[in-house]
Structures are given as C-alpha cells and as structure tokens.
C-alpha cells in the first residue's frame, strides 16, 4: 500500500513557471526534493535531502529575536548579533517562520499530489503549445522518487504536454527503461570522466549512469548532455576528451551544454546548516567559459554550447 502513497504525493521543492533554459520552448520546471548524489559543487543543496527542511536567509534577519521567543525546542539562539540555529532540533512546526517579520525563515519543501502539480503545470498549456515547451521535472534527482515522477509523466503525456527530465542518470536501469516512453527530452548530466573521479566528487560510481545513457540513446530519446564544469576539478583536457568521446559514441545527442560553476549554492548551504564547499572558488567568468567552448571545438566537439544551470 505504501507504493500507492508515494505515487500520489511528493515533496516539491519549487515550481518555476516560464523557464526558458531547461529544455525546448517555454517550460514549467518542477523540482523534487531528494538526491542520492552529493556533488561537491551542487547549486541546489536544499534539494539533496529528501525531507522538508528549515532554511534561513541571514541577510534578511533583523535579529529581532521573535523566532527565539516562539520556539520550544530552542532551535534559535540569538546572542551578540549572532543568530545560531540548531537545525537538528527542528521539528518543522513552522512557528518561527510565521513569527519572523522579515521573512528570513522558511520551510523548504511542500507535499503536493500529482493533481496539484498538474493544475499548476496546465496553467501555461497554451504557452507550451506555441513554443514547443512543456514540463521539466528536475530536482534533486527526479528519478529518486520514481513512482511519482512516472505518474506525473504519464499524466502529462495523456494531455499532450511535452516532457523533459533532468537527471544524473543514477537509477536502476530496469526502472529507467520503464520511464523512457514517457520522456520526450532527457537532460542528462555528464559530470566527470573516469569511475574513480565520479565516485570521489559525487559520491556514486558511474557504471549504471553510463549504461542508462546507452539505453536512452538506443531507444532514440532526444538527449541533451549537460556538463557542469568546475575549475580545478574537471576543466581538464582529460575530461573534455571524455565529453568528446561521449559525443562520438552517441551521435544522436541533440546537444551538449556546458554549465559553468557558480557560487550560489554556498549561501544556500549555510542556510540549511551544512558546510560550504569549494570555499575559495569564484563564479566562472563568461570569458573563461567561452575559452572552454573554444577548446572543445578545437578538440572536435561542435555540438557544445553554453547552458544556464
């Protein structure tokens, strides 16, 4: 019975209408919470954990202390202009969120049914039709909550909404095959070249991922490869040649997008009480990303262009 329940509901991290950069046309991107990977450069760290979470925006905090007053679990402690938060004690009651006059606190994630998500998605139906757009299911890792995602995909196909899934590819191949008929476009991550590196930086190994890419390619799903590029980690010729090898191996790839590193994830990390990563790494300037594109072109990879991650 628990299976049915998962199909009905999921914790949605955000729904973004008018997305122009997550697949073809004008799209509505649905972000699911929960991801089995733990990439060092993750820019959506609040979507990693599969549960709802308290989050704090320090720049909005006025240190008024109202949150401290209402919290029975002593999650908030304000002393000498420091607002300390013990996230481990938070029971997600929401009292501090309501009490905060400056909207510095919020609960990330909201339980939603497939019906509720569909209602939001269908509001822009006409825009999809005219632009070749539709839904993009992202995360987190949308395939982590496979029953919900599958149900959502089926419902979209039923009413003619173009579907796009943004995935790391880390999912059991058996289940992956089940979903493919309902996916029009796959935004498939290619993060690192080499199994050991993959494990080192993302926490999982890449065999199943590459296998899934091969399956998707053989099923003639439209695939756009998305490659996060992190200076000092994978902006190497070795990795670029890896991208080229993928391009050669899978000639039907619709495109390859480079997603240059940006720092936005770190303030979000602090907001949910986890440590910053890549502390000294700055957001990649446009000039550098253009150099990467040029390098890939030199190597013989012509499909590559700059994406917006």
């Amino acid at each position, binding site marked *: 019975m628990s299976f049915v329940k998962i199909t009905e509901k999921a914790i949605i991290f955000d729904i*973004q*209408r*008018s*997305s*122009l950069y997550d697949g073809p*046309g*004008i799209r*509505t991107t649905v972000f699911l919470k929960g991801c089995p990977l733990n990439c060092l450069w993750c820019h959506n760290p609040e979507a990693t954990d599969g549960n709802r979470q308290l989050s704090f925006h320090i720049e909005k905090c006025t240190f*008024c202390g109202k949150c401290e007053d209402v919290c029975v679990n002593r999650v908030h402690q304000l002393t000498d202009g420091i607002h300390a938060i013990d996230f481990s004690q938070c029971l997600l009651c929401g009292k501090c969120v309501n*009490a*905060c*006059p*400056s*909207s510095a606190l919020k609960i990330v994630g909201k339980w939603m049914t497939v019906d509720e998500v569909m209602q939001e998605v269908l*509001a*822009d139906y*006409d*825009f999809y*039709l*005219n*632009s*070749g*757009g539709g839904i993009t299911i992202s995360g987190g890792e949308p395939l982590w909550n496979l029953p919900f995602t599958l149900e959502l995909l089926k419902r979209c196909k039923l009413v003619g909404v173009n579907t796009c899934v943004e995935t790391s590819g880390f999912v059991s191949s058996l289940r992956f095959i089940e979903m493919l008929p309902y996916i029009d476009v796959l935004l498939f991550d290619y993060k690192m070249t080499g199994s050991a590196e993959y494990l080192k930086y993302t926490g999982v190994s890449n065999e199943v991922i590459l296998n899934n890419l091969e399956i998707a390619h053989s099923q003639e799903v439209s695939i756009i490869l998305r490659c996060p590029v992190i200076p000092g980690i994978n902006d190497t010729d070795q990795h670029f040649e890896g991208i080229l090898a993928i391009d050669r191996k899978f000639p039907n790839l619709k495109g390859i997008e480079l997603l240059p590193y940006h720092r936005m994830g770190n303030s979000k990390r602090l907001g949910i009480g986890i440590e910053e990563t890549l502390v000294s790494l700055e957001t990649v300037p446009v000039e550098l990303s253009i150099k990467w594109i040029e390098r890939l072109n030199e190597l013989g990879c012509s499909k590559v262009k700059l994406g917006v991650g």
Partner: protein
Amino acid sequence: MQKIDNFSMELNFTETYRKNINEHIAIREARCHKAQFPAVLSEIQENDRLAGRTFWGWVGFSPHNAPGGAAFGYFCHELKIIEAIERGNIPVEQRDAVHEMLHFWKKETSKAKVESAFTDKMIPVLFRDEIVSLPYNFKPLIANPIYRMAGVFLDYEKLLRLGIPGLIEEITEKMNVVKASGGDYQLFEGMLIALDVFIDSCKYYEKQAIEKAKAASNPQRVKELLQLAEVLKKNTISKPESFYEALQLSWLYTLMCGSLELGRVDVYLGDFYVHDIDNYVITEEEALSLMHSYWKLINDLFRDVDGRVIIGGRGRRNEANADRFALLVLNTIKTYGKAILPQTTLRFYEGMNPLLFEKSLDLIGEGHTFPLLYNDDVLIPSVAQAHDVPIEDAEQYMPLGCGEIVLDHMGFGTPSGSLNVLKALDVTLRDGIDPITGKRLGLPTGHLRDFKTFDEFFAAFKKQLAFFIEILADHEELEYVESGKQAPYLYLSMLYDDCIARGKGIFSGGIRYLGGSLESFGSVNAADSLTAIKKMVFDDKLISADQLIEALNNNFNGYEKEYKLLKESPKYGNDDAYADNIMVELHDFMCNTMRDQRERTNLDWYLNVLINNKQNTILGRWVGATPDGRKAGREMANGNTPAGGNDKNGITALLNSLVKPSPDIHAGAVQNLRFGKDVFACERDKLNALLNTYFKKGGAQAMITVINRGDLEKALVEPEKYQDMFVRIGGFSARYIDLPRDVQMEILSRVTY
C-alpha cells in the same frame, strides 16, 4: 542684459479677441488665428528639411499644443506672465496692458468658462477652496479635472487629396449653399479665413527659406532650402503631388491646428512615398533624410506624451504601399537614434506582413522603446463593443497620448479627468475622511469596523467610486458644451467627419462621435488592498479591522507582523484566482459604471482608461499606507500592471493575469513588460512564442522595455554614463537619469524577466 519679455503678440491676440467679442465665434476664432500665426511660428533651424516650429505665446488659442502644459482652447498662462511681471523686463509701454490682459483672461479663458459653469454638485468636489490654489502635484484629491482637448487625429487623407486650394473650393461651395438657404454660413467664412492664415504661414516660411538660402554658404544647404521654398509655394497653390509636399503640408497643418498626434502616416503618406520611389522622383536615402527631419521636429515638441505615429493594422485602403512606408518608419527609428517622440505605435493582426512585427521586435531588442504593440485582433472587436460603433469604424481606432482610444477623424474623446482609485479606498476605510488632512473627501459610508462582511465593504467602496465617476462624467460633458459655445475649433472642424456636412463646429454638434475618457490610477493597488482585507480581516480573521487601521495610520511601524501578513496576501499578477477575481470585479465595476454614464449625459461614450504616466507616482504621494502593504506616499502600480515586485510567479503567470480584466468595456489599458537583453538576443524564438501566446489569449497591448537591472542600478550611481538609456513609464518614454528618484526606484522595483 536680461532678455526683454515682449508681449506684443499676446497683446495683439487679446485685442483681437476683445474687438471681436460679439462677432460670430468662427469669425472671432479665425481673426485670433491671424493674430497668432505666423507670429508664433519660429525659425527654420540649421538642418531642418521641413518648415514648422512653434514658440507659442503665453496667451493664445489651441486645443492641446502650447507651452508649459496643455492648452485648452483660449488659454492664458498666468504663471508665466506673472513671472515676467516680477522679472520687470516688460517694455514700459506694455506694462499696463499686460496687467489688464491678465485680468481680462481670468474670466475669459476656455477653462474659466467651464469652471464658471460648474454645477453645485461639482463645486465641492472639483473646486475645493482650501486646496484649489495648490499646483496639481500637491492636491490630495480623489477626482481631478483635466483641461485639454487631447487626441486630435485629423483626416489627413482628405487634406492631402484636396490640398489647401481644394479645401477652399469645397468650403466655399458649401458656404454658398448654406448662405442661399439662410443658414449659419459664418462658420465657413471663418474656415476660409483660417485657411488664408495657413497660406500666409506657408508664404512666411517660403520667404524665410529663400532668405536663408541666400545667406547659406554650403551649396548642398542652399539647394535644400530652395527646394523647401518651392515645396511651400506649391502647398499654397495646389494639392501635394510629391512625398515631400505631402509631408510638409501634413506637418505644418498638424502644428498650426494645435494637435500633438500624427495618426496613420503609413496610409496618408504611403502612396506618395511609393510613387516617388518607384518613379525615381526620390531616393530611399533622400526619403530617410526627410523622415529624420520630421522625427526631429516631432521630438522637438518637447512633450513626454502624445506624438503618436501609427503604422500597420486593419482598415488601411492601400495596405501594400502603407506597409512599405511603415518599414521606412521602422528604419527611421533605427537610424535616427533614441528619441522621446514620436511614440511610434504598431498595430498588427494575424495575416499582416510579418516583416513589420519582426522588425519592430528587433528594434525593441536593440533597446528602443518603440514601437508600442497593439493587437488589432483583440482591440477592433473590443472597441466596437466598448465604444459601441460599427466594426468598420472600430478599425480606425487610434490610441492617443498615453493610450486612450479614439476614432480617426470621426470620434473625439479627450481624457478630462483623473480618478485616484486608491485614494478613494483610503477614505472608504475611514467613513470618507482623508487621513492626511482630517477633512471629508468622500461620502460617509462607515468605518471598516462597521462592516459585517467583505461584500458590504466592497459595496461601500463602489458607492464612493460611482459618486466621483458621475461628477467627472458631467464635467467632461460640460467641457465640450462650454468649448463648443466659445469656439468652433476651425482647423479641426475642417478635417473631422461630419462637421462640414452638418455645418457645425466639432464640439457644437459637428463631429460624428463625441466621447470621453476617465484616467483611473491605482486600481491594481486598490484591488490588492481589497484582497488583503478580504483575506486577513474577513476570511482568515488574522487581523481585526481596528488593528488594520492602526497599522495603516502608523505606516506599519510597530506592526511588522501585520505588514508581513498583508504583503504575503495574494496579489494580482500571479495567475492566482483569489487576487485576480477581485481585480476583475473592481475592473468590471469601474468600467461598466463609467460606460453607463452615456445614459446620463450626451456623450457617445465615456470610458475608463488604465493608462499610466507619472501620475501613478504623483497621485500616490497623497495616499496613506494601504492594506496591500504599500507604504504611505509611495507610488501606485502602473496601468494594468502589478505593483513592483508583486509578480513573483514568472512571466507566463503575469501574462495569464493580464488577460483576465476584460478589454471590451474600456478605452485602453497599458501593459508594461520588461525583458532582459539576453532574452531578446538569445531566446528570440521563445520570446516570440511568449508574446504570440499572450496576444492569442486576448492580450490587447504591450509596451516592452529591454533593459538590464544592472544598467538601472549603475545609472543611479553614475548617471552621466547613462544619458542614452530610455525607459518606458507606460504611457511614454523618458530618459531614465532625468526622472525623479522615486520614479527611478519604482521602475527599478518592477521585475525584469
């Protein structure tokens, strides 16, 4: 040495009016034109290819165009004259006469005539003793009268088909018929005098051009000036035969008649242009050079609104030629550089030459604020419905000034009042009392705490609005009645249907449709305030009525919790039915109440316009904190666009909300959309799809600015580097750095997509 303030033109004009005070109004007006022209026509400048600039006097006659603000028939710019008196540089022999002139016009201007005819019901609302002496910007009023005859769209086709000699012939014939039958022939006599004045003005410029040619050293310039003299001469003796002659004639007539709109240039100039190009009379380069001069003259009207050049759309008899001319207009925008005027307006429909729309988007993408986009497929049926006219008349709809819709040379509808909707809400919360002055501004409909249900409160608000709408509608009618009694507006009546046929002046029963419009400001904030009241006070009961009033009276200081709840209440612009439905209900009520005024008055229509100009900022200054979370004195949302920062759900959600208020019950609503440069540059297909969908879903209009938020922020810090950055404030374009800081901040606060 200080400049002498010479008032000889004004004194001569005044003397002429006085001498003819008991003459037929047409004769009096015609003789006044003679006193005014060519005296107020100013010199042909360095690079002008066309003749026609004005330096209007401080006294004169014009429906709209005049210095220091809008004219309204016989005008007298008291402030400027008093300034001159105080400077003490008026020639000795004129001093007594200038003082006397000031006294004379005090009760004789067209505005004074209207004010003296106010009804008892109007006086306490529109003419409050304690505040009427304040300048417009300082009036905390709900209803403000506006004096100007805006939105003149002449029958240029007729003007160019007949030329001045042809017009004289037609009018003379008509005069003889009327005279023979014992009718009021003097109207036509006045028209003929006015046309003589026009001919004199052409000759005045012809002579000037020849003199300037003699003095010029550059052979190219000599040639140009002699050519101009020839064109002006031709205008006095025959109908125009070339593009140049047609352009010159239409421009000078526009200027002298006191209009500020150019109308369907592609229709009335298209055939001339195409003929001249195809027959090698003129080169593309030469045509463009003339257009640049035309653009400069329009821009030099120094207005921030009006100056509508309209291209494209249904109902053009010569569509292919008109399209070619429209492309020349777009090329003019591109090559001229940024300008405040003209406000080029593209009307489009499904099936029109797609090049016009594409090229227009290119221009917008390059950072031009023009053209403004008007969707015929929605607007023509809407105008037919709202204005209650046949479809073929609706096809000739023209947005004037900030976007009020009238009908080309057959239907006038000047906006003669403004309604501060949010101020009306401000007082409805407090039994009709203004919280700033403590004085009664509205009807005593009770305090917020007295209402048992939200619907009761909404009903009280509607009652207040209806009260002011009726007074302003009566005022519009009165403006026309008094103006019609005082003058036939000869230059307009000659080129407006059906004045000549009926033998009557435009505002004395001559025109086919005489309508009006009311500019409403703050509707979106009022709707969001109603939503917040409904949700917080009546539905969820999280804030009591008294608590809300206290929070508002204290501008939310010490009421942070209430402020947050009010800010987080649903807002219009997010495709959220809770908020959007209230906006629609308010919109329907206001539009329908105004539209119903034609039953009470003799106006053919009286319609709401949700336009925007600076008034959303100026009128907002006198509105206290409001329940939508807007703080005291802050700007109100612009037109039909959500308040800055309130649309948080993406542009598709915004567009879905924008199409909810019905377009077929009002005379124009402005939708501002801002896009980042990147969207235009990199995602053009998606942008096209976005706009297409919006227009297909019923989007009537869009004013698009392409700007980066970073640009605006940088411009605040280093204004000197951003001289060329133009932004749209709904009804008009402005140089961003020239705007007052609060207007700049308001623009900055609007979301960029």
